[in-house]
């Protein structure tokens, strides 16, 4: 095989790999849209009403049930791509983040809901950053956006932090979802 054949073959293979990877990841966009919407509603309601915990509990239960349903529909055996351990992986990541957050809240004695809100957004951003390094550059951009909005919210909008965080971070999640769903397939 000569150099030009090898180059042509390598380019063709890379195109196939990129296209397949995009197709496999495409449906994950729906999860970002779902949780982005939940963040917008949850935080916005929290800004104007006092029953923050009840609203978040209901929204989280709704989000978890819808995510399980979505993963069955999108990654079940009727589809092109089968992810047998996807729910377990999402569960493990969620448990990891919750434990991480609880330890930080306890160690650093975080008491205000503003601080806890910022911690949750930042730890979510860290997760997306790590996943993005191995999977999808879009998630790195999403992580950077979430951190950026946290800093802006903390410095300039602390009084309206929930509303600001909900709209900015929730919209970033939704936008990422839409971009993943419409990601260009090279073939």
């Amino acid at each position, binding site marked *: 095989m000569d150099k030009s054949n090898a180059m042509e073959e*390598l380019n063709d*293979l890379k195109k196939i*790999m990129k296209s*397949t*990877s995009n197709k496999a990841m495409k449906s994950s966009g729906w999860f970002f849209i779902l949780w982005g919407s939940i963040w917008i509603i949850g935080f916005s309601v929290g800004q104007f009403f006092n029953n923050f915990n009840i609203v978040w509990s209901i929204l989280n239960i709704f989000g978890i049930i819808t995510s399980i349903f979505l993963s069955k529909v999108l990654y079940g055996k009727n589809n*092109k*791509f089968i992810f*047998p*351990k996807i729910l377990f992986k999402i569960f493990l990541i969620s448990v990891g983040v919750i434990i991480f957050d609880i330890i930080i809240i306890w160690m650093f004695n975080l008491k205000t809901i503003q601080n806890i809100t910022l911690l949750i957004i930042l730890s979510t951003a860290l997760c997306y950053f790590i996943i993005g390094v191995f999977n999808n550059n879009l998630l790195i951009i999403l992580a950077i956006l979430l951190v950026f909005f946290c800093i802006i919210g903390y410095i300039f909008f602390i009084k309206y932090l929930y509303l600001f965080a909900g709209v900015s971070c929730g919209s970033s999640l939704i936008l990422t979802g839409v971009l993943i769903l419409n990601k260009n397939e090279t073939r």
Partner: protein
Amino acid sequence: MKQDNNINELIHQPTRLKIMALLSSLEEEIFVDFKFLLDELSLTEGNLSIHLQKLEAAEFIQIKKEFLNKKPKTFINITKNGRAEFENYLNELESIIKRK
């Protein structure tokens, strides 16, 4: 089975090479539906089956058959061996390109 340039002849065949590229781009535990491969590679069922059997015999892929709503379904994924062999193949291509 290696030919000149240390290239694996079994993988080097164009259709099998595409199958390996397609499967290797997915994470380890992800399975692909047989019909998806058919659509992506524009092959006949028989032709695709023969290539898959060869790759399975070399332990580069694993094939899982299940019944879904009383209809048989075939899922395919790449093995660790297959992934390593495909990576060697890509490395070999890159080393050919770098050669003066």
